[in-house]
């Protein structure tokens, strides 16, 4: 080809390229075909680089062709330039195209070799687990803080005075039998319920209104069997204001139960007795296990007892300094263990205190 081109230019007369360009184009088109085939033949990026050098290198074909630019007349220069440009871009485009394809293939091939078993477990992926009692406590706290209650805490070791007397349970009151108490000394007890917080917070707040708190915490009673633990957890709720009613208590508890157990659940209030509330109510939730058809879980009654509640007894309000003719309130005490057992279907309370990791990791 070089020979042919050399001869072509030797024979080329000044300013005659216009009329002879077909000849040159024919020669170059052959060369172009040859180049395109060479590019296609390259199976690796390295092969292609050799082809690239052959055409585009310092001593390559294009560079050779360019030398004739200096040799032709000014009139022929643009014509020749166009012909070379055409030749060059065709090959260049093809080469780039081919490079892209081959590079991709080669990367793919390389990545293929880097394959890993993506089903292997991740490293350091172990998470911990909150205790189910905490999960329930946090849920209940959230339900109540969302409706404007504030979380407060009381003492776990409490004065007899706050644990009993301020709650309308003087010494020798038969209600003391309801809760078997641990004593540190005659005046100091392990609180038997979270209710002393009621007296403590009202003392702090009086005469401000409203008092709207919940108080979670540990409580203690001298009982130990499959349904009782000497230490367990309660959440106390207290709302004191003008015009608080028994119906409000029912509404708030209904909201609580639906939030924990689901919209479809119902509640039942049963008259009961606590010295520090009147009227008092035990609250049952409809059994979710049998949809109230009756089953072992609910003792074939369709109802599960979950908490005690009532209107704050006037004398409890008075002892804190509130005028019980102007102010009313409701209070409730939720057993967290009980809720956790119902919510998660735990059938033995002792599991909650055994802290077997195989148990804890399920939550």
């Amino acid at each position, binding site marked *: 080809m070089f020979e042919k081109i050399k001869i072509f230019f030797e024979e080329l007369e000044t300013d005659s390229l216009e009329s002879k360009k077909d000849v040159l184009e024919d020669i170059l088109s052959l060369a172009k075909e040859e180049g395109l085939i060479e590019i296609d033949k390259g199976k690796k990026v390295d092969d292609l680089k050799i082809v690239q050098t052959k055409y585009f290198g310092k001593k390559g074909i294009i560079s050779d062709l360019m030398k004739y630019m200096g040799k032709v007349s000014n009139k022929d220069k643009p014509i020749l330039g166009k012909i070379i440009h055409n030749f060059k871009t065709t090959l260049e485009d093809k080469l780039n195209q081919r490079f892209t394809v081959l590079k991709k293939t080669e990367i793919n091939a390389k990545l293929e070799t880097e394959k890993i078993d993506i089903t*292997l477990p991740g490293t*350091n992926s*172990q*998470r*911990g*687990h*909150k*205790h189910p*009692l905490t999960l329930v406590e946090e849920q209940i706290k959230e339900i109540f803080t969302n*409706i404007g*209650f*504030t979380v407060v*805490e009381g003492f*776990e*070791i409490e*004065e007899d005075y706050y644990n009993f007397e301020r709650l309308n349970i003087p*010494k*020798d009151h*038969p*209600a003391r039998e309801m809760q078997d108490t*641990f004593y*540190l000394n005659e*005046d*100091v007890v392990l609180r038997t319920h979270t209710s002393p917080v009621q007296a403590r917070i009202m003392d702090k*707040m009086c005469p401000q*209104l*409203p008092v*709207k*708190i919940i108080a979670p915490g540990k409580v*203690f009673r001298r009982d*130990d069997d499959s349904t009782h633990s*000497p*230490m367990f957890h309660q959440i106390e709720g207290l*709302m004191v*204001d003008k*015009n*608080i*009613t*028994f*119906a*409000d208590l*029912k*509404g*708030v508890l209904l909201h609580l139960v639906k939030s924990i157990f689901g919209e479809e659940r119902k509640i*039942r*209030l*049963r*008259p*009961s*007795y606590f*010295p520090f509330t*009147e*009227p008092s109510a035990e609250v049952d939730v409809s059994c979710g296990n049998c949809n109230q058809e009756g089953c072992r879980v609910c003792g074939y009654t369709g109802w599960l007892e979950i908490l005690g509640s009532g209107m704050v007894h*006037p004398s409890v309000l008075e002892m804190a300094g509130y005028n019980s003719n102007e102010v*009313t309130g409701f209070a409730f005490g939720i057993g967290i263990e009980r809720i956790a057992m119902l919510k998660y279907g735990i059938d033995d309370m002792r599991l*909650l*205190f055994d*802290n*077997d*990791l195989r148990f804890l990791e399920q939550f």
Partner: protein
Amino acid sequence: MKVSLNWLEQYFNEKLDGFEIEAILTKLGLEVENREKLDLSFSNVVVGKIESLEKHPNADKLQICSINVGEKENLQIVTGALNIYVGMKVPVALVGSKVVGGNISESKLRGISSYGMLCSGTELNMDSSLLSDNEKDGILPLSEDLELGEDLLDVFSLHDEVLDLGLTPNRADCYGIYNIAKEIILKKDYKLKKIEFLKGDLSKENFKIKINNENLCHRYVARIVKDVNIKPSPLWFANLLRNVGVRPINNIVDITNYVMFELGQPMHAFDFDKLEGSKIVVEEAYDGETFITLDGKERKLDKDMLLIKDGVKAVALAGVMGGYNSEVDNNTKNILFEAAHFNSASIRRTSRKLGLRSEASGRFERGLSEENAIKAMDRAMYLVELLGAGKVEKSYFEAYPIKQIIPTITSTTEKVNAILGMNIASEEIIKIYEKLNFNVKIEDDKLLVTPEAHRIDVKSEIDLVEEVVRIYGYENIPATLPVGATNTIKVDYKIKLVEQIKNYLVDNGLNEIVSYSFIDKSSYEKCGYATLADERLKVMNPLSENQSYMREKLLPGIIEIASRNYKRQRRNIPIFEIGRVFKGTVNKLPEETLKLGIFILENEVKEWYGKVKNDFFTLKGILEKLISTISNKELKFERLTELETLHPGRAANIIANNQIIGQIGEIHPNVLSEYDIKEKAFYLELELEGFDEPKVKQYKSLPKYPSIERDMALIIPKDLNYAKIFKTISDASNNMVVKCRIFDIFEGSQIEEDMKSVAFSLTYQDPDKTMIDEDVSTIHNSIINTLVERFGAKLR
């Protein structure tokens, strides 16, 4: 409190349905804990008479009886019973019958056919507490006058249902079944029958009743019955008692028990001829006085206990139990019946101190109406006549120093509705009071309400509110949500903090545990603590020794749980607890401090990506990240060697703001071996008080100039710690070193014995200009020189 439907039905003209009664009582606040049908435990057991007995030819211990069960032919039954004799009436389980323990079928015993079985009380589901000593022994002897072939279910009136009530302390009146009947008519339109009494005249005779301490005994009623005929009660009467769990004894004692179960009023019957002084004196015992109660036990009394005396000697422990010396026996001719009102607190204390609980003391403790005493007496006298048990004297004796005050309570419909959040009409409310048999007087817009005498729990307006809503029905209360002013109580930051810490720890692979707040005294020693348990934190009445002290540390509880899991082959034990610990003080209440304890086991395991294990620095890392998550506090660690809880070479005090806030370290091997843990474990205990809400951080502008990193490898004395080197570097660099990362520590044969090789990567940065190599080199060299001069460090 057991209530039998048969008993209740005496007061109505209708047959009662157990399911319905349970529902009614539940709605009224009388909790039914259990309901039991009594005729399900056996069937086809009849009265039979043993007509002959012969020895079994092939067995020494068996006898062959011929039993007449009222059929044409006698039954042949083989038995091993010893307490049987010809002519005895016995319960016979026929072929095809069911008794406790199984079904009875025809069988052959050592070659002789047997068509049934003779039954003991247990086989007929009778609780042993219901059987007398001779009834407990073998086959249950039946009364002579029973008809042959009669079904035992009928004989013992067992077509009955028994409700077990869990009564609340305010409704002590419901320990009387008649008062429960009064409750039932509040919800059911039945007519309540009146019960009959035998009233007497108040005597002016010489038999005296003297009450020494009126506060402890408001009322004492006594009545004498002469020419008594002590014998078993008629079966219908005995059966009623048996069905509520009381063992029939004799007609007189049974009458006192019957009245106690009917009206809630305990009574006592003295053998009148055993009383010596012709009077009753109610007075306190003296310290150390002894007294033998009915059960034959000698009791040691003190001056807080109340006695009934006959003028010469003590004859009963008031309200708790009668005396052995005045017990009614088969020879008793004359009876003095007692119905009294005793102070509930006094009875409670006495019965607690003596550990002596009786049906009577239980009722007195909860409180009774003074008016109840005379009603009970009159009822008992009626029953004495009804059962033909003796001749009731016309007059009764009484001391009644403190009269029952039945309050008249003022209430308004508005107030009732305001508390309930309801709109119940006045007429409706009045109707409820009338149903309750409360007296109502209307005065303007006020209602003046006087409750029935036995309802001593109704004292103030709020009690009336409760009665109204109880009877109106809790199911009719609407559910509303409170409206009112916004709550302004501030949340204690600690509450948020705890939640945040738990979230962090759980995200980092730790599991939360909850251990008991009381621990074993010995656990401090086991955990290597130098101090012993604080006696001020001792529980006076623990359930067990190992739960007798309120914890001062979290470790004992945590390590116990770790150990329990370890024993279950568990090796991955990353656990934490947040809880309060206690400290005895001079104040009334101990100090309560919130603490965090974290425990991790070394747990070296090969994973697919290599070996992993926990060590001191794993735990330290968790702590450092935790602290920077929850506060702006800078932590310092100071070596801690004097503890026997932690490894002396691998333990530190955790210090923030110059205060020790906790300890961290490897647990001392001695402690681990106490808990049977055979692997290294790491523990930290951190006080969570004093973590105030961190101040909002103010933004600092970003460095304008680039930083340069340089490495440094030194041989330094082994004892020289990182904290000291870092401080020296930082000082020597004039604060141009912004970061000092240690990336290699090496000790070993190539290095002198007391030395170690450490390599640092230092990051230099000048806040005011771009540092050039020369600047860095100058500082870098001066750092090296300082280290060499001060610590004898050598460049590697």
